[in-house]
């Protein structure tokens, strides 16, 4: 069933995000075409910069819409009239959440790949070569600074990105699912829950800072900071690993909240 859900979910995404990204590549092609007529005239400058601005706006729109589509798809497919079909399929809530989250993540990756292709198209030629050279230089510098740790760092960064993107979606799913528990204005409630949750996080962070400042000596903060400062490789590994673990824990928490709301409190109107 998961395979079938994947198939239909992927199709639902592709029919929206593929044309959007193809348009972006089209804008890239147009921008590159404009560059063939490079000269010192004002007319060229206007057309050239317009194509660059259009491309930049296109990139922002593609990133934002792909992300918003992932959230919207979860809501419309499960909590509007489409939910009558989704929740009468012989599929568990866990499978629904898992597939929605994974496909949303794949869509984000797809968006990144398509934007990269579009960037290569609009910069095709010397600029593109320079971009790749700069990327190679950055990686080389990493290897010089961290030697054999670089591969592990790159791996940690990739895992962090995967987990963070998945967790971001899961947070929105949890808010939407919790919002469904309200008797009316469920979308507004979901938005309210999202902002309330962020405010609580801010308050908790502030309290943590106050505690650390108050018990600076008792907690041996100075010594810990010194140790971290003089062991940058360890500090980096620790930072990335902590980011992965915390994000994973939050992911599990949001998943549990979403699943519990769907399993125990589903109330389709």
């Amino acid at each position: 069933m998961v395979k079938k859900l994947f198939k239909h979910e992927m199709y639902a995404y592709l029919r929206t995000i593929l044309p959007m990204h193809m348009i972006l590549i089209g804008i890239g092609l147009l921008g590159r075409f404009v560059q063939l007529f490079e000269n010192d005239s004002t007319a060229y400058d206007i057309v050239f910069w317009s194509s660059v601005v259009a491309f930049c706006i296109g990139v922002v729109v593609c990133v934002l819409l792909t992300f918003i589509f992932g959230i919207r798809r979860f809501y419309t497919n499960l909590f509007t009239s489409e939910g009558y079909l989704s929740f009468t399929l012989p599929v568990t809530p866990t499978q629904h959440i898992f597939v929605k989250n994974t496909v949303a993540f794949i869509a984000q990756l797809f968006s990144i790949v398509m934007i990269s292709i579009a960037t290569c198209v609009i910069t095709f030629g010397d600029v593109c070569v320079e971009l790749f050279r700069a990327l190679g230089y950055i990686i080389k510098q990493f290897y010089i600074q961290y030697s054999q740790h670089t591969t592990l760092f790159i791996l940690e960064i990739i895992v962090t990105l995967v987990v963070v993107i998945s967790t971001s979606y899961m947070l929105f799913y949890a808010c939407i699912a919790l919002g469904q528990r309200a008797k009316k204005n469920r979308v507004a409630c979901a938005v309210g829950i999202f902002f309330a949750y962020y405010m609580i996080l801010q308050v908790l962070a502030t309290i943590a800072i106050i505690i650390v400042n108050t018990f600076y000596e008792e907690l041996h903060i100075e010594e810990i900071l010194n140790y971290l400062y003089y062991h940058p490789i360890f500090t980096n590994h620790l930072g990335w690993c902590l980011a992965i673990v915390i994000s994973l824990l939050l992911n599990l928490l949001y998943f549990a909240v979403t699943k519990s709301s769907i399993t125990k409190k589903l109330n389709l109107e």
Partner: protein
Amino acid sequence: MSEILRCENLTKKYANTTALNSINLTLESGKIVGLLGPNGSGKTTLIKLINGLLTPTEGTVLVNGNKPGVKTKCNVAYLPDNSYLNSWMTVKQIIDFFKDFYADFREDVAYTMLNRLGITPTTRLKTLSKGNKEKVCLILVMSRNAKLYVLDEPIAGVDPAARDYVISTIINNYNPEATVLISTHLISDIEQILDEAIFIQNGDILLQKSIDEIREENGKSVDALFREVFRW
């Protein structure tokens, strides 16, 4: 006959409103049952509970001995009272969707019925009229070889000719060993196909009897009895 549906002390409350009030109900296989009651009597709430779209406040629903879940969803074909299809899909895509998820879906039956209606597989659902969209929904549901068909107001808001189409589609395509639960308040149109009737009002089951029993005991049709029981 085996039991297909059992509700025990089933209660559903929405804030201060009790939609279903500790009802007990049993349905056997191989019958067409009318769930009859005025608007707001609790028909749709009961149907949603059977399909796992609502969670009971108290009590249990068992479909073929199982609580609503993956197992029961394989056995229940549900027609909601509103259009629930993705409007961007074509008729063929929605048929493929049903074929993928329901092992009991009969693709050939669906295409035969669609062909009779003159709806081509490449037609987008959003281009269909409201009436045709409802017919496509009914065709999808009745193309399943389910154990329990739950149809929520299938003839509400359709013209008399379309009502005949809906009723003939149900009669000609349901699995005879299955139970069909039809919720409606338009009794005269479906009375001739019912084996059993359930009267529901304000979340309480007032009556559950066979159509023959109702006629013999009361000397009147189900429609006439309904008008008498639910008179304002």
